[in-house]
């Protein structure tokens, strides 16, 4: 009986069909055009075969998980249904390793899946810093080093675009707006498994020689590169599709499924950050997909979109990539703004200060982020007369970003601050993002950017905003919401140790790298001047300590979830927002009755306390 459960549409079949699809594609690719490619005879490089292998592999993977069953049954004329597991899933824990349309299951799947690949990216970072202990190559050759750099950057960027929206958006968006599910549960599951397929594809680049372009994948290097490049293209295109669908799903949910009384002015600020981020996703990610399809055509069908020797232009690639790439970094940053402003009221015991200003800040950043992309190209020689415009637009972005800061400052002012672990990570964000944002001033200013562009200064800058911004708020969210998601407490003492080691080690890693860049070290080099060794070694050792702090977190996670298992209270932080008013574990259908909202989400310090919306079945 037990063995019979292995049959059917599940992860096992998915892996089998993925492998079958992969080999079928590989074989087809060799039948189609082996003779027509002039370079194939010299190098054995058949990109058509590898793209087909990836494509059919992904199709097989999704088919094995059962994603095509419902569409085909509809085509066959069966009536529309709600999946059984949107309500009650009989599969027990195994629902977490299969196709599930329960947003809470998908949220946890996202957390674990993204966590896995981000850990992989973090290990690459450790290896990069290990290599940079000496000015001359010592462990890896140039090619391996560049592959590590590319894998680290691409994996982190690709995975963390969904790093907040995937886990916490999926899980808590319906709970925060009083809905029973996301608008498109099947699409939600689809985005997750697509991202996982992408992560495996990117990892497979090591079997095809890696790729030398870093996460930016500039032409014509991307055309010159060997087959490992195809993994990058396939991965980022899948990420783009996943991001777009995830974002449409979130937008549709917020627009259509808010509980009665939940006006736009009463939305939790985290939901507003999801709206702003999702808006960026749906406008920026399709550009990425198209850009990469054109790269793939250059590499397979011998088109010349980005090859100036064949009538194309490298500048076209640079423009298109950064038209996606700059909104992308705000896709990473804005959910962090949302988390900080969502958590500060809870731990300050005060309402959010300047709600409208905070919303304006997020939407303003989102809007402006589409008008700044050429600041990545200040010294490229393209559109040199537009540089003053891009300098202005880039610096204007600090105005709405400043709104987020002033709202945070107003919120803690005269509060009753509690320094629980999530609060510590939010305060860490304030410090890190302040430095990250202000170092951006030097990069947005053309004269200053001439020296800082492409140097370790810009590396330190974006690590301050992405690690110091996004990753710190990611951990704030984990400590804040994971007890709700799993019903189990995390150890607070270990959490505080994790925070302090991480905060000190993070700053100790990246602050010296500003100096390294200022002193003239370009990015992505395997060698550097000997006089910069001390600073590089300092950064490397600090980075290892930073890695250690992540291991402390993982220890806490495993120990608390697998061994200690002390049950979490339904509302451990005394939060007044809706997602903490439902019992833990969250009922399968979230709310027995849809709540009616009659106040803003932060009724702290209000006498008499307004009625916190308490759905039936809530404790207390």
């Amino acid at each position, binding site marked *: 009986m037990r063995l019979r459960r292995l049959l059917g549409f599940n992860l096992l079949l998915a892996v089998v069909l993925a492998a079958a699809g992969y080999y079928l594609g590989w074989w087809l690719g060799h039948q189609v055009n082996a003779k027509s490619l002039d370079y194939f005879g010299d190098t054995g490089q058949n990109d058509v075969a590898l793209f087909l292998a990836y494509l059919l592999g992904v199709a097989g993977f999704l088919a094995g998980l059962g994603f095509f069953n419902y569409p085909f049954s509809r085509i066959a004329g069966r009536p529309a249904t709600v999946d059984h597991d949107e309500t009650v899933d009989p599969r027990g824990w195994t629902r977490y390793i299969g196709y599930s349309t329960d947003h809470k299951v998908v949220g946890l799947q996202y957390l674990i899946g993204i966590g896995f690949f981000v850990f992989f990216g973090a290990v690459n970072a450790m290896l990069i810093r290990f290599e940079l202990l000496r000015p001359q190559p010592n462990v890896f050759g140039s090619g391996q080093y560049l592959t590590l750099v590319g894998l680290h950057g691409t994996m982190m960027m690709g995975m963390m675009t969904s790093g907040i929206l995937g886990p916490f958006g999926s899980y808590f968006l319906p709970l925060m707006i009083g809905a029973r599910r996301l608008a498109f549960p099947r699409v939600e599951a689809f985005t997750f498994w697509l991202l996982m397929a992408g992560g495996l594809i990117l990892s497979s680049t090591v079997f095809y020689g890696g790729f030398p372009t870093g996460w930016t994948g500039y032409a014509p290097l991307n055309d010159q590169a060997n087959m490992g490049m195809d993994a990058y293209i396939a991965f980022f295109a899948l990420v783009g599709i996943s991001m777009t669908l995830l974002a449409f799903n979130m937008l549709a949910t917020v627009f259509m499924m808010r509980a009665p009384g939940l006006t736009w002015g009463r939305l939790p600020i985290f939901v507003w950050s999801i709206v702003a981020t999702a808006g960026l996703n749906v406008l920026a990610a399709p550009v990425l997909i198209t850009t990469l399809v054109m790269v793939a055509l250059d590499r397979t069908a011998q088109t010349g979109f980005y090859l100036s020797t064949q009538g194309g232009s490298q500048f076209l690639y640079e423009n298109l990539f950064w038209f996606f790439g700059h909104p992308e970094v705000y896709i990473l940053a804005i959910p962090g703004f949302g988390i900080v402003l969502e958590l500060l009221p809870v731990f300050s015991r005060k309402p959010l200060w300047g709600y409208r200003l905070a919303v304006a800040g997020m939407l303003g950043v989102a809007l402006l982020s589409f008008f700044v992309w050429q600041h990545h190209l200040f010294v*490229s*020689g393209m559109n040199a007369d537009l540089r003053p415009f891009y300098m202005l637009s880039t610096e*204007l972005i600090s105005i709405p970003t400043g709104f987020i800061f002033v709202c945070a400052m107003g919120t803690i002012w005269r509060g009753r601050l509690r320094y629980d672990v999530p609060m510590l990570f939010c305060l860490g964000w304030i410090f890190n993002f302040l430095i990250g944002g202000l170092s951006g001033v030097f990069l947005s200013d053309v004269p200053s950017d001439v020296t800082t562009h*492409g140097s370790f200064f810009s590396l330190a800058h974006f690590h301050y905003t992405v690690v110091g911004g996004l990753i710190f708020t990611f951990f704030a969210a984990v400590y804040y919401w994971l007890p709700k998601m799993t019903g189990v407490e995390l150890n607070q003492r270990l959490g505080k140790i994790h925070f302090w080691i991480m905060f000190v080690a993070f700053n100790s890693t990246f602050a010296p790298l500003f100096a390294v860049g200022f002193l003239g070290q370009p990015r992505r080099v395997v060698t550097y001047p000997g006089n910069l060794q001390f600073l590089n070694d300092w950064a490397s050792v600090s980075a290892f300590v930073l890695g250690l702090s992540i291991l402390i977190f993982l220890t806490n996670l495993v120990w608390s979830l697998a061994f200690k298992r002390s049950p979490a209270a339904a509302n451990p932080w005394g939060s007044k927002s809706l997602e903490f008013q439902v019992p833990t574990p969250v009922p399968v259908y979230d709310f027995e009755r849809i709540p009616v909202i009659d106040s803003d989400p932060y009724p702290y310090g209000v006498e008499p306390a307004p009625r916190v919306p308490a759905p039936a079945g809530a404790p207390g």
Partner: protein
Amino acid sequence: MSGPNHIRRVAILTLVATLIALPLVIWVLGPALPPGSGSDQAAGQVTDNTVLTALVTPFVCFILVFFGYALVVFRRRGADDEEGEAIRGDPRAQTLWIVLTSALVIFMAGYGTYALLQNGSGGGQGPDPIAVPRGASLPVQVIAQQWQFTYRYPTYGGVETMHLVLPADRQIELHVTSLDAVHSFWAYGLGVKADATLGTDNVVYVNTRSPRSFDIHCAELCGLYHGYMFDTGKVVGGTEFDAWIQQQQQLYQPIAQYMPPYSTTYSPDPQRRAG
């Protein structure tokens, strides 16, 4: 609301912190900022960096003082479950913040534009430069390819050299181009950076000063040996430069007939894929 005037305290502390930090930034940190005084453009960047740092210093002081003060003074005492006052905003504070940050930002952009238009600040300006310094320039071409830079001197018969030597106290017009991938020519000590792109003539002006040597790096990932694409350039006195360039002309005389004629860009054979 009785009790101490927190706002006044934060204001005074901010003022004190700023008065301490600002002179340090202007007179101690500023001169140490990169990229030094190797050229007019480099010195201009140092000024620019100093101005930017000085402008953000009061804001940094304010925010750090604010948080330092608030985190200590407004912490929860004991197991107090009291909640803070329900203050949902303050139109005056919000307006003041918006006005101040906007003024700062617009001033920065204006100042940056002004600094840029003086002499191009050492950044690549493409084929039609907008910030052109006055006076005659010595044209020098920088050709990037995987994985080295070479240099051509069109006024000296288009001789192509392996190292960059420039005369002191001259205005140089660098023409940066590439034969393959995108590179970026970064002459750190001169405050020069310009992407090298196939088929594009990227012009940079640099006004050299006294003789010195400077580091050259490739600052755009260009493939396998990107990390090895570095060199040391030299700024030398006028007579020394003349002697050097004559020596180069003699050295490369035997291959001059095989060189392609000088051009702002070069079209190599259609690129073939390489491993």
